[in-house]
């Protein structure tokens, strides 16, 4: 029988331990939650983001191809001279800094591709190749029609898209580690 007397209500004991240890049940729930979380992480393919990225890059490539097909080709007198494509590449794309950044990025992307499972690697590489081929075709078209402003803009945009895609590939999977 508890005969302790109090003068104030806040003198009542705040600590009233439970009649049984609750920890075993809590620990079991924690372990179950941990393993469910681990299983969830395992079930999600590590390269799922890469697959999504391949699809995104493919979409960009298709977009570039569509854009190129819609760009009006204004054959001028100068185009008839068939200048080499390198001479008509917009100044922004001939910038040494841009070239250097792109070269570094290509090396990093190659490393990333080597780490990917074969299936994902093939998809991403194919998408990047499509993008690159589209850029090559725009450059070739510009070689035939160097004064075509729309083609020049399309080329710059496509190269920017390529840089974004390469950066996305390089950074893929980093958040999961």
């Amino acid at each position, binding site marked *: 029988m*508890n005969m*302790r007397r109090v003068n*104030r*209500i806040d003198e009542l004991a705040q600590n*009233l331990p439970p009649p049984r240890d609750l920890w075993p049940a809590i*620990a079991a729930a*924690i*372990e179950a*939650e*941990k393993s469910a979380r681990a299983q969830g992480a395992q079930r999600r393919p590590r390269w799922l983001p890469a697959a999504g990225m391949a699809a995104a890059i493919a979409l960009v490539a298709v977009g570039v191809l569509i854009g190129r097909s819609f760009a009006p080709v204004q054959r001028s007198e100068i185009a008839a001279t068939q200048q080499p494509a390198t001479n008509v590449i917009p100044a922004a794309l001939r910038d040494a800094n841009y070239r250097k950044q792109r070269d570094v990025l290509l090396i990093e992307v190659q490393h990333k591709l080597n780490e990917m499972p074969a299936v994902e690697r093939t998809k991403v590489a194919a998408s990047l190749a499509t993008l690159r081929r589209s850029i090559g075709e725009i450059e070739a078209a510009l070689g035939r029609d160097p004064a075509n402003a729309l083609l020049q803009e399309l080329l710059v945009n496509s190269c920017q898209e390529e840089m974004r895609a390469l950066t996305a590939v390089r950074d893929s999977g980093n958040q999961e580690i």
Partner: protein
Amino acid sequence: MADGATARMTQNDTVVDFDVALIDRARRGDSRAFERLYRDHVGRVHGLCLRMTRNPDLAADCAQDAFIKAWKALPKFEARSSFSTWLHRIAVNTVLEKRRGPSNAEISVEDPSDYEEPVMSFDSPVEEEELEAAIQSLPQGARDALVLCGVYGYEHSEAASMLGIAVGTCKAQLHRARGLLKDRLERGVR
């Protein structure tokens, strides 16, 4: 304590919080650190649940669920409030969820400022057991306010927030609890 950073200065959690290192470890998935937090806090959490539910089995269930919820919610815990207060908030929520029927019905308040003082003292000493029985006999709303403000020392604003009621309602419920305790204990309650 095993971890120097977790030593407790006083029993009043408003002075603390040296649980920080344990919380940090628990957040990173260290269940042993969380067990240490459980051992430190379970008595107060269970006491709160027991006084609010008046049912030993339900109180143990609520305390257990509160700790499981706390583990899951640890990443969201911000040190703006003490860990103990945060834990009590979860425990009160758990009790409220498990209760059936209406709770903490609003009661009219003429002037809530009349009931500011949450500390309650008696004209003459009261046996703990008699006082606990009188608290248990109180209506739910009055009991909740009395337990949080009177026994556990929360401000009206904190208790009202935990219970999901207006501050004025909390004050009125405490005033009501004071009157009922006075009748049941047959002595002056200030």
